[in-house]
């Protein structure tokens, strides 16, 4: 009983540390800009919530001309995040399957070709990558937002870890039954992977949703702007006036979809990961 109390205590503290900034954002989105700018953020909601959210949603703020409407940016973010998640899962499943269940010439080469990229982020080679996008006429398009981010050593690694736990005897059994690799993939591997796919979907959806530097560089059409980029564009430096209340309202809207995905898919998600690590 006493141990439970300490557990409650620690978890409560953890929640305070991990959820307080988000609480502060919610509160900030219900006050006016100058209250926040003065550093006098109260700990209770203010009266301006509805107004701030309406302004953020419509792309209007305090009578001034604001950025893109949050509604449009949310759609763009959703398309980008879904595209990246679906694409990554598809190609990672296929390549992990090939690496784990096949013996073929060049297997290790393929393995390393994929995994050396595990830790090489786009920031390191942003200008050459931009050049490649131009050569392929992919700048300023939804495809350009999605395709380059689809290569994923991380997802492949995760599927590989999971596939390694599938008993090898299944393969032998499949061979005995005369099933080919593709049928094995469809009838055995894929059904077993459903929860892992769901889990990865959550991770990758959020990875896609939270992209910043890449969309900023290759998109200059406002109708394709994503919400994270749009949000940071509202946070000015120097001469600009920050409408912190609108920014906070937009931040809340930028957080809602990924948070919803995490919370709604939580059961599947944890179950999926449990299967992965067994």
């Amino acid at each position: 009983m006493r141990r439970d109390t300490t557990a409650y205590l620690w978890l409560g503290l953890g929640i305070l540390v991990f959820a307080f900034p988000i609480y502060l954002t919610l509160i900030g989105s219900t006050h006016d800009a100058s209250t926040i700018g003065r550093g006098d953020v109260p700990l209770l909601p203010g009266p301006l919530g509805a107004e701030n959210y309406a302004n953020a949603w419509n792309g209007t703020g305090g009578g001034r001309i604001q950025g893109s409407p949050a509604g449009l940016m949310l759609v763009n973010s959703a398309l980008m995040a879904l595209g990246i998640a679906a694409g990554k899962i598809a190609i990672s499943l296929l390549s992990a399957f090939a690496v784990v269940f096949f013996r073929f010439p060049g297997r290790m080469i393929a393995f390393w070709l994929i995994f050396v990229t595990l830790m090489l982020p786009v920031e390191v080679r942003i200008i050459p990558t931009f050049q490649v996008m131009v050569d392929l006429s992919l700048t300023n398009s939804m495809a350009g937002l999605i395709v380059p981010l689809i290569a994923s050593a991380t997802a492949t690694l995760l599927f590989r870890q999971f596939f390694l736990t599938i008993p090898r005897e299944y393969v032998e059994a499949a061979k005995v039954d005369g099933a080919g690799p593709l049928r094995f993939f469809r009838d055995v591997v894929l059904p077993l992977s459903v929860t892992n796919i769901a889990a990865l979907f959550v991770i990758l959806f959020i990875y896609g949703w939270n992209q910043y530097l890449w969309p900023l560089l290759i998109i200059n059409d406002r109708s394709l702007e994503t919400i994270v980029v749009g949000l940071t564009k509202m946070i000015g430096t120097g001469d600009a006036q920050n409408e912190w209340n609108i920014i906070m309202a937009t931040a809340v809207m930028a957080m809602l979809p990924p948070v919803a995905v995490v919370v709604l898919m939580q059961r599947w998600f944890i179950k999926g990961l449990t299967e992965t690590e067994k």
Partner: protein
Amino acid sequence: MNRRIFGLATAGLATTNLATPALAQSTPVELQFWHGLPQPLGGLLEAIATRFNESQARYRIPASFRGSYPETMVAAIAGFRASTAPHIVQMFEVGTGTMMAAGRAVKPLHELLAETGVRIDFDDYLPAVKGYYSLADGRMMSMPFNASTAIMFYNKDAFRRAGLNPDQAPTTWAQLRQAATRLKAAGHEMPFTTAWPTWCQVEQVSAIHNMPLATLDNGFGGLGAELAINNPLLNRHLTTLVEMGREGTFRWGGRDGAGDALFANGSAAIIHASSGARARFVREVPGGVANIGAAMLPYYDDVAGAPLNSIIGGASFWALNRGPNATRSAEENRGIAEFFAFLAQPSVAAGWHTETGFLPVTKTAFEQVRASGFYTQNPGADTPIQQLLRGGGQTTGNTRGIRLGGFVEIRVIMQEEMERALQGGQTPQQALASAVTRGNVVLRNFERSNRA
């Protein structure tokens, strides 16, 4: 979704082919314009582009925000390397040296106007504005637009509470330090801070006292310039700031524009900041416009010849060629020139000035705003212009501006060294010496890669 993706991709291709004469007749020529102003300033700028689009049918300029100034600069350069440069890019004044050395990447403004026959009267521009963006012989290289300068803002309530006269700002550094000490004694936690530390405390201080920031007229005379900031004046000034920091009368507000927030929220009593911050201060400082004093930057009154004019900041618009092997059509150039001429109209310049706090870049616009009574309703709004004309309005080699390559990097170096001096990690003298050594490496690298 697919249709949307491919639709946009083909639309992108169509844009590149637009220059064909047949199409130009029926559809307006689209001219890409990238800028680096976040909201709400960016929106006001985009509204000006929209007004231009509505004023005629031949050209259409979709203005697009590309991130902060440095990000916009990088995006434009990456675009140029990829032959997809925008027609017009907004470049902050710090990037001027880099653009000037960019050779055939830019279409010099004087060439653009001569070829298209569009006329803009640059004699009407404030000398400090015009000088910053022109060659040594006076030919314009880029189109000045949002220009600002650094001035001093102070909180009148804080002055009153410390028993200082709220209608009399300190004019010299000795007076500023005295006032700050009084404020401190009266219990004020942050008597003085600064935004844009190198711009306000190094570049402006040098100009006002007619001291060189770099040799060869601050780089106007060529790529061989060397930093000259390790001098007695700046040593004295940095020592003043370090001492004030130790006494608690000066607080470092952070790099670049971060210090603005400290004045905006009422914590700082005095700030040196961009005149473009005015609109923000009026809106956010407790007590509003009645509580904000604006004055010229202080100077050391024992320095002979001081004070002279301050230098400008802000940004100008550059016409870019499409790529290393691609130029613009005559029609595109004409559109760019007409857009610039549209911006030069007194009504546009005056509107921008009164809405934002940036300078009215032309004398006519200044007169127009003055005649409207704006300055009597908004006392102090003309301080930046007065300050730019201080010392007779004729610039010297030290007050014309700064034209150093890699200056973005040099500013960061100076900020880093200032931070270490204010932390007590090194003496002001060491900070300046180290900034010169490191800055000169940048200058020599730039010179080497930009030799013709």
